């Protein structure tokens, strides 16, 4: 009872309507259009489009997770690509174990790259990954644990703003270098690939693709509701308070460290789940997912969509990735100009992203009456001052 009434407060009535319509459209209409209509039909959704959308859904979940920590707690993590990739690697390890004797060297225990590096047995950290549920547990635990340790170290030392961003960036950079090493036992630069089956279904079969797509959509929806639950709870307000004036929150008796640590860990877990859904759909996971540039890009999706709104992050992930897919095909030589310009325009003219655009236009007239009181403050490392605009 209590839970139901609490759930109802997650969104307004209209919000719930939009949410449910979008969910139905995504998980019912798209697969139906893909399966039932002939390819000639203008309404047919081709399979490549389906897998593209599946990928975007994973990115949307990733963006959502970043919005939780950046948009609400004001800490920009440039390490979320790392949590995403760790989740992806856990899933990849499960998928590798499912190959069995179908690898090129036909070794029943060892993945091809281990056979090749003359490893005689599976390293201990690969044990258990043959079990789907263990792997799924690890998908959440591994990124969560890393986020917990890193968060504990940094939040406890009251590292905020840019310093936090740089530390998380150093973390992904170190992870990238580590995963590039062949001795690590994760396939080095090539990463994990050549997957065959997930839960006994062929990963390349259309049915599996649709299944993964629907799973991604459902998980995204669930992730959205969980995030909504957090941000509409009192903890959500504590987080926003931290974003506005971190030290003031301490004097009210809240543990800033624990609040941030909680949301950072949850956020990393969501990112890990996104990675786990992503890997079977794209068929490969390798260290370039850890590259610092990827993590910065995630922040760009959130900023473009509008941070601190959750749905803005989802919208941003779809917009930027859609634009990227389109322009890399339509204007392969110039797409970076478009992308670069998009970032600049968004930060300059859309401080609240696409979702803030409507409000911005509405407020324009009203704002003219009140002169801006914004002062030119340039403090480094003060998360609160970010919201000066």
């Amino acid at each position, binding site marked *: 009872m209590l839970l139901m009434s609490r759930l109802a407060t997650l969104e307004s009535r209209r919000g719930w309507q939009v949410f449910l319509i979008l969910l139905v459209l995504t998980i019912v209409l798209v697969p139906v259009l893909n399966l039932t209509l002939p390819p000639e039909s203008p309404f047919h959704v*081709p*399979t*490549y489009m389906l*897998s*593209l959308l599946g*990928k975007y859904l994973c990115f949307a979940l990733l963006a959502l997770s970043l919005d939780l920590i950046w948009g609400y707690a004001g800490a920009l993590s440039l390490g979320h690509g790392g949590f995403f990739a760790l989740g992806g690697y856990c899933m990849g390890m499960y998928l590798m174990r499912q190959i069995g004797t179908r690898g*090129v*060297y036909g*070794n029943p225990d060892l993945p091809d*790259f281990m*056979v*090749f*590096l003359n490893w005689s047995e599976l390293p201990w950290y690969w044990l258990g990954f043959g079990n789907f549920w263990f792997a799924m547990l690890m998908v959440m635990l591994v990124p969560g644990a890393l986020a917990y340790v890193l968060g504990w170290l940094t939040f406890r030392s009251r590292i905020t703003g840019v310093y936090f961003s740089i530390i998380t960036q150093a973390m992904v950079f170190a992870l990238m*270098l580590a995963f*590039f*090493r*062949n001795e690590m036992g994760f396939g*080095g*630069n*090539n*990463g994990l*690939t*050549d*997957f065959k089956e997930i839960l006994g279904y062929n*990963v*390349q079969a259309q049915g599996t693709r649709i299944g993964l797509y629907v799973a991604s959509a459902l998980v995204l929806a669930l992730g959205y509701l969980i995030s909504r639950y957090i941000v509409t709870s009192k903890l959500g307000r504590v987080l926003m308070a931290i974003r506005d004036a971190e030290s003031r929150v301490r004097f009210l008796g809240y543990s800033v460290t624990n609040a941030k640590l909680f949301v950072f860990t949850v956020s990393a877990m969501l990112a890990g789940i996104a990675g786990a859904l992503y890997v079977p759909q*794209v*068929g*490969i996971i*390798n260290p*370039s*997912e850890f590259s610092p540039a990827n993590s910065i890009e995630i922040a760009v999706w959130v900023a473009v969509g509008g941070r601190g709104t959750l749905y803005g992050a989802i919208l941003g992930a779809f917009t930027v990735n859609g634009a990227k*897919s389109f322009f*890399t*095909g339509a204007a*392969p*030589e110039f*797409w*970076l100009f478009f992308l670069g310009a998009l970032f600049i325009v968004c930060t300059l003219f859309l401080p609240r992203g696409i979702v803030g655009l409507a409000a911005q236009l509405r407020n324009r007239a009203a704002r003219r009456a009140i002169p801006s009181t914004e002062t030119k403050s340039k403090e480094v490392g003060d998360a609160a001052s970010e919201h000066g605009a």
Partner: protein
Amino acid sequence: MGTFKGGIKAVALGCAVAVSALMAGVAQAAEPIKIGVLHSLSGTMAISETTLKDTIMMMVDDLNKKGGLLGRPVEAVVVDPASNWPLFAEKARELIEKDKVSAVFGCWTSVSRKSVLPVFEETNGLLFYPVQYEGEESSRNVFYTGAAPNQQAIPAVEYLMGAEGGDVKRWVLAGTDYVYPRTTNKILEAFLMSKGVAKDDIMINYTPFGHSDWQTIVADIKKFASAGKKTAVVSTINGDANVPFYKELANQGIKATDIPVVAFSVGEEELAGIDTSNLVGHLAAWNYFMSVDTPENTAFIKQWHAFTKNDKRVTNDPMEAHYIGFKMWTQAVLQAGTTEVNAVRQAMYGQKVRSPSGYDVVMNTNHHLSKPVMIGEIQSDGQFSIVSQTEDAIKGAAWSPYIPESAKLTADWTFPWVCGNCTEPKYTAYAK
């Protein structure tokens, strides 16, 4: 009611006219044959891959000037996978499923190939992969036009072991830490040990991608070489890291006559970014050098300079591989009379092309080419002087005999094998 029926009739008639007009239009203009170009135009790999995109554009341009293929023009669909491996898979799928291309020319790094491989196998596409690679792979849907390890690494080491190469007794195998150097070094280590080189006389070193500070490693190499035996470095260092590596070599005064370095990833294009006056004598092994003196090569270079409108542009081995691959594909399409993948694949086997290197290059049933191996020494003008080349073309081996697990595997896509990695033919029973 009557008017309604009449309306339908009118619409139907209109449609019919429109459709037939469209059909006629298609028949006249001949729908183009599409091919995909899947090379990174941005990101880290753009350095190497843009040239390959241009090569294919040149070949397409040339083919269209000569009247196209099967009476239809050829259209290259260029996309930018941006050095991002999952994006390679996405773009490959887009090319095959959305643009319906007949063949794709693309990829450079092994990981990009591994990333697109499932897509090509699932959709039964055709990929021409033009770069020297580690082998240990044979896919029904990929034609490997670059060198396999036995077409590059082993001949180069054999050369250095001989009197002409300076009787090298001690070996440094230096590479970037990824699968190509790992495989090549593994094969080379096994090969060297089989030739009686002691384990102490082999030093293996791996560095990260884009490694830029080579002071320590070059100093280590010098130290290793000072043991009194003639020492050589076999470098599988990847693209970007080579410039600082060679600069450090030159500055620390390592001359090719003291410690020769033979590289498998350094060609004319890479040397264009380095001042080679201090690197004279260091070696590279390829299947083609721009300095090859044959009429085919002269024509190839001329065509390239005309296409790029720049007579300073160099040609290199992967470009030649694309040249061969594209020619072979057009020949196979002509022979099959269709661009349908299964038919073209069958027609590819045994396809012969006179390559710029001056040899008749043949496609084998293991999807690898028979190509000559050449060893060149760097000269001060950034070109290679060819110091050794094989008499005949060498057949590329997908599986190396020096790796125990792969020695027992066979790649043969014709009856009775029809398999990329089998220990026995799939159709043994029918073969008799």
